[in-house]
């Protein structure tokens, strides 16, 4: 059982890291955030993995795992991990400011407009449409990530358990993580 999909992917990703400047980090995360109506993670996946190829699909899952298991907003943590990886402290700051700067101003602007004019039903209806569509993007990202587990039964089982517990049953995330993670890591260790 040495050649699972997961392990092969790990070996494929070893060679040269791409050259990424501070400006590129800032720009990529600015695009991620400005595209992220109703959610930014699917755009992080699309731009970092599919478009710029800074991370392999496998590296993205690993980076996101780290971000999800550490406290704090996931995509903010992701900007730190990706920025740090290519450019250290300066990179983390560049990615972070790209991600948070512009939406900070946009959200405050919208807040001012809202508190001055109240909200219009037509905006609510448009937002409902965007939210429904944004949910579809998260499905697509999750399914794309899950494709890599096709031939790893233990990973499929853990994925389904996590989905069922937190999604369908709506159990709180933290206890689910605390129970599921040790089991999953132990299974991964034993199956090597």
């Amino acid at each position, binding site marked *: 059982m040495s050649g699972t999909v*997961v*392990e092969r992917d790990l070996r494929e990703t070893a060679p040269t890291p791409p050259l990424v400047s501070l400006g590129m980090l800032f720009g990529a995360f600015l695009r991620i955030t*400005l595209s992220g*109506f109703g*959610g*930014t993670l699917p755009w992080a996946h699309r731009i970092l993995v599919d478009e710029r190829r800074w991370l392999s699909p496998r590296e993205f899952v690993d980076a996101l*795992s*780290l971000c999800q*298991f*550490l*406290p*704090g*907003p996931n995509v*903010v943590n992701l900007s*730190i*991990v990706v920025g*740090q990886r290519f450019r250290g*402290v300066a990179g*983390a700051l560049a990615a972070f400011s790209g*991600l*948070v700067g512009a939406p*900070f101003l*946009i*959200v*405050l602007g*919208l*807040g001012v407009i*809202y508190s001055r004019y109240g909200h219009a039903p037509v905006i*609510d*209806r448009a*937002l*409902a*449409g965007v*939210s*429904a*569509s*944004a*949910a*579809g*993007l998260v*499905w697509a*990202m*999750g399914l794309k*990530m*899950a494709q*890599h*587990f096709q031939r790893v039964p233990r*990973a499929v089982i853990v994925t389904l358990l*996590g*989905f069922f517990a*937190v*999604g369908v049953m709506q159990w709180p*995330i933290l206890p689910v*993580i605390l129970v599921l*993670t040790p089991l*999953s*890591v*132990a299974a*991964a260790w034993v199956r*090597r």
Partner: protein
Amino acid sequence: MKDDVSLWAIALLFGSLSLVAVGGANVVVPEMHRQAVDIGNWMSDTEFANLYAIVRAAPGPNMLIATMIGWKAAGLPGAVVATVAMCGPSCLLTYGVTRVWQRYQHTRWRAAVEAGLAPVTVGLVLASAYVLTRAADADWRAVAVTAVTAVVALGTRLNALWVLATAGVLGAAGLL
């Protein structure tokens, strides 16, 4: 009531939430609501709901709900303090852990931990997709929008912004 909220109170609230928000900012939104509406009386229930709706639909990370709460409680300084407090502690932690984590690249146990974490992460992503679908979808038309978006994103190279925009226009026109 606005001016009574001290920046320290805001910093303390979001600084501590930053370090307990395992799984993302959405996890601590109920606690933000409790502090800002029920305990602190910084805003009404409806105001909170509307601000959260704005944040979720606007471009950018959902943690900006902290920015909005800080702004509502203490103006622009409040917004800055809330944002920095919500991101600062967790960012520092993430930075430190990433540095340490890199040192163990190519070790057997790190490979096992990553292989074990990955499916949990993907399960949580799919769970959040499910929760978002349940929250957004009033009826079959909204479900159809969710499904069509997913199919387009998986099966084509079309920029998903077009799909989001179309869904927004359909919604505004009252067709959803």
